[in-house]
């Protein structure tokens, strides 16, 4: 699973409804991953304990019977304001409080009290010393528990309807009772337990707490009210974020970052250690606080107390914004000062809807309206991300972290996608498509690929280019190179015709060993045109650079003027014509390339013939680019190829695709198979009976069986809109299901057609759009580059 501590915290915060910063996008997915992992339960339990503990401390401090000694201002206000939220909650819920919560609160408070209900009996309580007043707990005739309850409520700042004065007096005496501390601890603990229940509920750990579940089942509104307690806590947390005691911040952060969870997803111990550390940090903080605030009582005279209090003043609490300014909650003092009466909290500004929790559970804050008057950040809409598992892969989903950021505004913003088609000459269709890769989507950067094609005279001309990943304006180079190369080739080949020959042999295609010049002049014209276009393409890149020399925008991006190397790109060129032969026509293809990617022809038998050797250094990624040096004719000779013969298709692509079909021989055939199966290339001219006959010889002996066989996966496109679900078929899986060797499947148009029937790959109908969708969707681990392909293909095979 491997989340970093920061991520874990963000996921938990989000799940608990505490506003996180704006990048919400992956949180729902991350939550799913986290909550399904084996260590989640321990981790979440520890978190809930930790948070409840902090609240517990707040209550304890609040109820502290001793005076404030030297606690820092922020510590005091931290806990005070925390408690103010809780108090608010209690009051808001006063009238709506469910029986269950009521019972719980009373049980809590009663449980904490060691005295018997008769008021007498010394159990746990010592007789006072130092005053002549008897212990109020022993006042005859009064149910002391109730009294204490009220006093505690008063002390906690929860307005008591009557008997304020009485409660106050009661409290001041109770405060010096030896059992007070103990009682305070228990009260604090019990109330914190309630909060812990809310966290358990929110973090979806209910299944492990059958008592709570049973309790809730008996009383359905119980959790809603507790949950609104949580809302208060959250508001406080968020409102106080900036002012929160640096000590708490520091302790928790330190605890979490000191030890990070292991990357081993099965090591639950290590991850729960993180949570335990958090918990320990909170405890440590709490015990420090305890030393400060809860020091052993000295029997001070009231005079001394008074002076201590005046040193700090009545601790004014920064009220929550929903309170009216007039209010002051009792400070951390226990001076018997009547001016410190708790006033009624103005409920109107504090009331808020209690959201329908069940409906939105699992979505955190998502789906709820603004529920409080505290300024909280409106969460950004959750943007779905993460293509799902590809069925054919044994590796578990690794794409949960990929996010989608749109193409940025800025100089030379390029369209994210491109898809075009052209009806070529004499029986071929021509389509091209380009899709921004996952890495660029994740980083929010431009697609660096480009393609261009045209059809003039007897020729189809195609160019594909991939801008260098590390160069900021390489896409500009890619585009300039493609557009110029195609224009130049069009100019030079527009009126060029290949001569008729009775027969073509290897000799016809011969080139001089030394000079590389074609023996046949009409063929050499084409080679020269290609080399010329390479040069012109490079010149276009230089021009594009010059045009941007004085651009401030570009300067700002680079920190200096733009240079040619910032536009580095590859260039793959290919031209096709039908040549007349004895009994008809056949295809003649020339290619020339600088860089990586692939140019391949699929011959009439489905066999791939590679028309380039990708430039590569010792290691992958060490690519040659279009440069002044590389476009010299002598450098291009070894990069120029020619092919003559009947073809099913000519394919040009950047390495974003080529790499996924490695080794390219015979990978390119498999790519052709995938094009047909995924309905990008529609084959015709085969009788249904021939298809049926072909199937009969395989394990999937009829079209019905093909329909039932699973050789596809459903993939979600990574996008910021509703992700399309794409049905990606695989030739490899198909051939396994058929139990026919891969090359035989590809050789058989009948089998390919059979495999392409049935459910559509996607919603698009045009071939070029289908190509774009397929490029944008198919998922392979480690394949996150831009993907571009141009295909010239026959629908009726030779």
């Amino acid at each position, binding site marked *: 699973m491997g989340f970093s501590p920061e991520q874990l915290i963000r996921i938990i915060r989000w799940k608990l409804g505490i506003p996180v910063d704006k990048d919400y996008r992956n949180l729902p997915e991350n939550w799913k991953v986290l909550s399904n992992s084996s260590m989640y339960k321990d981790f979440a339990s520890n978190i809930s304990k930790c948070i409840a503990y902090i609240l517990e401390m707040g209550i304890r401090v609040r109820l502290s019977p001793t005076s404030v000694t030297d606690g820092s201002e922020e510590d005091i206000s931290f806990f005070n304001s925390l408690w103010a939220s809780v108090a608010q909650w209690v009051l808001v819920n006063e009238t709506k409080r469910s029986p269950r919560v009521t019972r719980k609160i009373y049980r809590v408070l009663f449980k904490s009290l060691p005295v018997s209900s008769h008021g007498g009996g010394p159990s746990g309580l010592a007789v006072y010393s130092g005053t002549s007043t008897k212990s109020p707990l022993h006042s005859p005739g009064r149910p002391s528990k109730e009294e204490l309850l009220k006093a505690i409520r008063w002390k906690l700042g929860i307005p008591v309807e009557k008997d304020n004065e009485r409660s106050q007096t009661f409290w001041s005496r109770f405060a010096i009772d030896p059992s007070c501390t103990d009682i305070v601890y228990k009260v604090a603990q019990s109330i914190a337990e309630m909060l812990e229940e809310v966290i358990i509920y929110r973090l979806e750990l209910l299944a492990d707490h059958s008592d709570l579940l049973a309790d809730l089942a008996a009383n359905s509104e119980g959790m809603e009210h507790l949950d609104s307690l949580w809302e208060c806590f959250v508001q406080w947390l968020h409102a106080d974020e900036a002012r929160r005691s640096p000590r708490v911040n520091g302790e928790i952060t330190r605890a979490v970052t000191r030890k990070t969870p292991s990357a081993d997803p099965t090591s639950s111990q290590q991850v729960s250690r993180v949570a335990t550390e958090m918990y320990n940090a909170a405890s440590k903080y709490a015990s420090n606080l305890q030393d400060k605030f809860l020091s052993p009582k000295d029997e001070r005279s009231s005079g001394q107390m008074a002076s201590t209090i005046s040193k700090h003043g009545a601790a004014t609490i920064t009220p929550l914004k929903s309170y009216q300014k007039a209010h002051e909650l009792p400070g951390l003092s226990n001076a018997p000062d009547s001016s410190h009466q708790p006033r009624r909290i103005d409920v109107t500004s504090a009331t808020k809807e209690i959201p329908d929790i069940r409906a939105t559970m699992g979505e955190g804050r998502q789906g709820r309206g603004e529920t409080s008057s505290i300024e909280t950040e409106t969460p950004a809409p959750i943007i779905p991300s993460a293509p799902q598992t590809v069925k054919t892969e044994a590796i578990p989903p690794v794409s949960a972290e990929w996010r989608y950021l749109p193409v940025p505004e800025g100089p030379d913003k390029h369209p994210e996608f491109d898809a075009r088609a052209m009806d070529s000459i004499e029986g071929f269709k021509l389509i091209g498509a380009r899709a921004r890769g996952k890495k660029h989507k994740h980083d929010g950067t431009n697609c660096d690929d480009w393609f261009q094609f045209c059809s003039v005279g007897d020729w189809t001309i195609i160019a594909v280019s991939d801008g*260098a990943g590390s160069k900021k304006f390489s896409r500009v180079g890619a585009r300039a190179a493609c557009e110029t190369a195609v224009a130049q080739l069009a100019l030079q080949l527009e009126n060029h015709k290949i001569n008729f020959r009775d027969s073509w042999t290897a000799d016809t295609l011969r080139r001089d060993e030394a000079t590389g010049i074609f023996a046949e002049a009409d063929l050499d014209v084409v080679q020269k045109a290609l080399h010329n276009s390479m040069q012109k393409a490079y010149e276009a890149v230089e021009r594009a650079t010059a045009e941007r020399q004085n651009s401030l925008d570009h300067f700002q991006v680079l920190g200096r003027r733009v240079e040619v190397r910032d536009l580095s790109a590859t260039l793959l060129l290919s031209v096709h014509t039908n040549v007349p032969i004895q009994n008809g026509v056949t295809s003649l293809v020339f290619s020339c390339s600088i860089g990586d990617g692939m140019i391949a022809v699929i011959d009439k038998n489905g066999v791939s013939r590679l028309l380039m050797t990708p430039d590569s250094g010792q290691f992958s*990624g060490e690519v040659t680019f279009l440069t002044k040096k590389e476009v010299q004719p002598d450098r291009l000779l070894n990069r120029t190829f020619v092919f003559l013969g009947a073809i099913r298709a000519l394919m040009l692509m950047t390495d974003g695709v080529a790499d996924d079909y490695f080794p390219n021989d015979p990978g390119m055939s498999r790519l052709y198979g995938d094009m047909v199966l995924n309905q990008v290339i529609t084959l015709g001219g085969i009788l249904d009976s021939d298809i049926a006959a072909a199937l009969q010889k395989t394990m999937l002996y009829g079209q019905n069986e093909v329909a039932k066989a699973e050789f596809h996966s459903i993939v979600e496109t990574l996008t910021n809109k509703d992700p399309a679900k794409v049905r990606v078929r695989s030739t490899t899986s198909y051939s396994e299901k058929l139990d026919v060797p891969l090359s035989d499947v590809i050789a058989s148009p009948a089998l390919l057609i059979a495999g392409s029937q049935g459910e559509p790959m996607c919603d698009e109908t045009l071939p070029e759009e289908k190509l774009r969708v397929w490029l944008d969707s198919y998922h392979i681990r480690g394949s996150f580059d831009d993907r571009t392909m141009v295909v010239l293909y026959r629908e009726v095979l030779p």
Partner: protein
Amino acid sequence: MSMGRRLPVYLLLDTSGSMSGEPIEAVRQGIKALLSDLMSEPTARETVYLSVITFSSSAQQIVPLTELMSFQEPSLDANGSTAFGDALKVLEQCMDREVVKATSTTQKGDWKPLVFIMTDGQPTDSWESVADHIKQKKLGNVIACAAGPGADENMLKKVTELVVKLNSLQPEALKAFFKWVSDSIKTTSQSVAQVAADTPIGLPKPDPNNMIIVL
């Protein structure tokens, strides 16, 4: 089925006696932090393969080149001398065996490997000629770290141009080093595709409190 190209990362770590106690524990923690950090970055998670080679009186590859998701942290003990020459030899052998060159027609070539060497003291075996050989060979992007006052950055310059120096062997310093290693790997994994062969590797700035780049 097809899988992406791998980014091989080798950690060559000094586990001599002087590293015992806090330093080696900090190294262990550093590796853990490195792993979790890399797993959180998608490009790194999908491409990085990690190997650990340790050296003291002799060198051994304690974790072969393994993909991140399967990587088990090794236990590390520190005792013995500093057989740096042996370490470099073992590094070369492992890389020759495990790294796939781009020229291979049957296997997808790996991206240019990253090697991080860390030592805290002087070598105790003969190492100069091996170092020269390594420097010539261009195994990939090799970065060496002279950890603490006992380490000699000039010695490491004989192995590679890219040398960093850690102020001390305190846990904070070692933690900062591993964070920097992680950032370097992530940056590299994000820009693996299409780099001109002699483009210098862009390394992130190190934390100046703990580390400097030796010019």
